[in-house]
C-alpha cells in the first residue's frame, strides 16, 4: 500500500493516484508502470502513445509549482515510467525482462556457442583473424574487408530471422501456453541473439578499423 502525496489516499501501488491522478513514487514492474496487461506481445505504436500520454500526466514539468513531496513523487514516477518504456520498447530487452519475470535468466558471459550458429561463428572469426593478419598488406586487407562486409549482411539476415522468431514466441504466450516449453524456446532465441550481437559488434569494429587504416 502506498499513500498519495497529494490527496493522502492509501492504495495499491500504481503510477498515478486512483483518486486525484497525482503521480505516486511506487516501485513498479514495467507492465504495471505502463498500465499494460502482463504479456510480452506489444504493438510498438500503441506503446509509444501510452508512454506519451502517461508522460503528460506525471512529468516534473507538470508539477513545477507543486509542493516538494509531489514534485519528488513526479520525479520518481517519471523515472519508473521511462525505464519501463525503454525496457518494453526494445524486443530483446523485453524478452530478457520477460524471462526474468518467469524466473529464468540468461547466463552471463556464456562462452558456449549455440550449435546452430557454430559454423557461422567459426567462419566469421576465421575471416576476422585473416583480416587482422593481413593489415600490413593493403590490397589483401581491402579484399578481405570486402568479404567481411558481405558476411556482415549475412549476419544481419540471421539476426533479423531470430528477431522474427522472438516476436513469434511473444505471440505464443497469448494462447494457453506450455510455459516451460515457451520459456526454454525464448531462452534459446535470446542466447542466439546475444551471440549474434557480439559477433556483429566485432565485425563492425574490425570494418571500422580497416576503414581508418
Amino acid at each position: 500500500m502506498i499513500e498519495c502525496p497529494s490527496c493522502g489516499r492509501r492504495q495499491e501501488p500504481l503510477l498515478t493516484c486512483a483518486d486525484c491522478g497525482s503521480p505516486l513514487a511506487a516501485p513498479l514492474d514495467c507492465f504495471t508502470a505502463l498500465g499494460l496487461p502482463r504479456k510480452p506481445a506489444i504493438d510498438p505504436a500503441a506503446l509509444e502513445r501510452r508512454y506519451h500520454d502517461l508522460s503528460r500526466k506525471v512529468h516534473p514539468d507538470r508539477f513545477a509549482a507543486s509542493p516538494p513531496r509531489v514534485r519528488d513523487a513526479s520525479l520518481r514516477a517519471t523515472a519508473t515510467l521511462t525505464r519501463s518504456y525503454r525496457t518494453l520498447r526494445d524486443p530483446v530487452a523485453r524478452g530478457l525482462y520477460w524471462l526474468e519475470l518467469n524466473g529464468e535468466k540468461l547466463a552471463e558471459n556464456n562462452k558456449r556457442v549455440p550449435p546452430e550458429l557454430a559454423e557461422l561463428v567459426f567462419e566469421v572469426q576465421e575471416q576476422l583473424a585473416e583480416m587482422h593478419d593481413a593489415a600490413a598488406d593493403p590490397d589483401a586487407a581491402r579484399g578481405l574487408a570486402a568479404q567481411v562486409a558481405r558476411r556482415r549482411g549475412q549476419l544481419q539476415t540471421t539476426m533479423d530471422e531470430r528477431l522474427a522468431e522472438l516476436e513469434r514466441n511473444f505471440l505464443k504466450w497469448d494462447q494457453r501456453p506450455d510455459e516451460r516449453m515457451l520459456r526454454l524456446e525464448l531462452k534459446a532465441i535470446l542466447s542466439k541473439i546475444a551471440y549474434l550481437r557480439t559477433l556483429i559488434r566485432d565485425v563492425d569494429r574490425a570494418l571500422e578499423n580497416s576503414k581508418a587504416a
Partner: protein
Amino acid sequence: MSRIFGIDLGTTNSLIAAIEDGAPRVIAVGGKRSALLPSVVAIAPDGAVTVGERAIEMEPHLTVERDGRVSAVGFAGGEQGAVIRSVKRYMGLGGDEVAPEDRARYTFADLSGPVVRFQIGRRVFTPPQISAEILRALKAGAERALSAAGKDEKVERVVITVPAYFNDGQRQATKDAGRLAGLEVVRLVNEPTAASLAYGLNKRATGNVAVFDFGGGTFDISILSIKEGIFEVLATNGDTHLGGDDIDRAIVNWLLAELPDTLKLDRHVWNSARMAAEDAKKRLSDVAATQVVVELPGHSIRKQLTRDALEQTAEPFIARTIKRCEMALADAKLTPAGIDAVVLVGGATRMPIVRQRVAKTFHREPLCSIDPEHIVALGAAVQASVLMGTQGDILLLDVVPLSLGIETMGGVMERLIHRNTTIPTSVAESFTTAVDNQTHVDIHVLQGERELANDCRSLARFKLGPIQPQPAGVPRIEVTFLIDANGILNVNARDERTGREHSVDVKPSYGLTDDEIERMLEEAIDLGEQDLEERLLISHRNDAEQILAALRKQLGEFGSLVDAGERARMDEVVERLEAARTGTDRELIAKLVEELNEVTTPFAERIMDAAIKAALEKKSVEELS
C-alpha cells in the same frame, strides 16, 4: 506567482526572453535596443563590475591615439582589474583542466583546486560568480525594459539553457550561478532542445528534426522526434569546447604568426588581434576577401584574408562537428533520409561553409527562419511557460548526454545509465562489503564513454555508512542514482534489510560546495579577517612569481636590450622580491612588485619595438607593409 523568464546564458552573448501575448519574445537588454548582451564582464581593481558592450571597451587592447601613437588601454588582468569573456568555457572545470593556451589569457589565483579561480583586483572570482554577474545584468536590463513598458515586474524565477553536452559539473555550476545571482533556477534546459521548441511551436511540426547548434564556445547536435506536442530527444552529441571562438583563435595565430612568443601572449596585442579576427570573420560571410589590420606601436600588421583561406582554417573545426552529427544519427538509429528538417542555431552557423557542410551531411537545406542567435532564448521562454502550466499540450522529453557509471575493481567503468537515456531516470544498484566488519563502502561516480575509470570524468565520491559490523558480503545497501530533469545526479541509499535510509555524503569532484556558495553569498559581511589576509598574501605571492618568471624569460630572450646600470637596478629589486616572496609581509611584496614593474617598463617597451622590427625584417612576411 511571478512569471518565469527564459535565459540563454551564452559563451559570446546572453539573452532573456518571455512569453508576451502568447508568443515568445526576446527583451532588449543590450545597447542600441539589441536583445544581445555580450557575455563579457569587466571587474575594476576596486571591484566595480561592468557587463556587456561597455565591458568590451575595457578589454585590454591597443588603440591608435589622435597623434597616431599606439597605446595599450584596458584592464590588463590580475591586480589591474580584468575583463573576462567566454567564462562559459571555464564553468564546471577543475583548475587543472584549463587549456594551456588559455592560461596566458587571464591571471589565475589557483589552478590546483576543483574550481577555476580568477585573480581580479584584490579578490578571487570563480566562473559561477562571473556568470552570476551576467545573470544580474540580464535581470536588471529586463526589469528596466519592463518598467519602461509600464510593467512593474521582477525577474525572480528563470529557466536557463545549457549546452546539451554539458556534464553534471557544468550543469551544477550553471545552477550555482543562478543562485549567486539571487534567482530561482526552475529548470535547466538543453540549448538545442529549447531551439526545437521555438521552431516546433510556430510550425506545429511533426517528424524528425536535427538541431545543429554551433555557438561561440560549444557545439551540440540533437536529434528529436516531434509528435503531437511531445518533443522527444532521440540522441544528442557534442563538444563543450568547440565553437566560433576556436576559429577566431586560429585566425589570431595566423595574424600573429611572425611575432615572438612574448608578444603573442601579450594580452593587449592578442586581444586586438582577436577583435580584428572576429570582425574579419563576420565580414567574410558577405564578401570574398578582406583586409585585416592590427595596429602595433610604430607598425601595423596588414594581411589579406580570403573566404577560401578562412574556410580552410575553419575546416578542422567543422569536420569535428560533422563527425559528431554522424555519431548522433547512429545513436538515434536514423539515416539522413530519416531527418525531416535541420534547424541552425548559434552565431557560428552564419558562416556559409558551415551551412554547406550541414546541408551535405543531412542531404537537405537547413532552416534558419528564426534568428539563430535568438532561437535558444525564445525556446527557453516557451519551456518557462510549459513550467507555468500555460502551454498545456507541449512536453519535452530530454536525454542525458553522457553515460553515468561507477568505478569497479581494476579501475573499470561500469555503466549504470547509458548516454541518450530519457530523463528523469534512475537505476538502483546493490552494494556490499568486501571484508569482515567493514563499516564504510567507498563509491566513485563517473561520467563518460570510455572503458577505464581514469579516462572518464570523475563526478563525485561518496562513502556509504556507517554500516553495522557484519561478515563480508552480508550487508546489502541499495543505492539509487537518479538523474533529474535538469540532467543532474541525485544519490540516495537504503539498507535493503531494514529499509532504513542511509545518509549519503556526496563530494563533487569539481565545482563549488554548498558551503562555498553560502560563503560567497555572505562574503561581503563575514569574511574572516585571517582568511582574507591569507588569500591576499597568496595572490601577492602569485603576482610576484608571475612577474619574476616573465622577466627571467625576457632577459633570456632579449638580454642584449638592457645596459649594465639598468640590469643592476633590476637585479637588486629582483633579489629583494625573491627574499620577500617567501615571507608573510604582503605589503612589502606588493610594493616590490610595483617597483620591479617600474624599473622594467622601459625594457618591456624596447622589447615590443625590437620584436616588431624583427618581425618586419623577416622576408617571409610579404603581407606586412
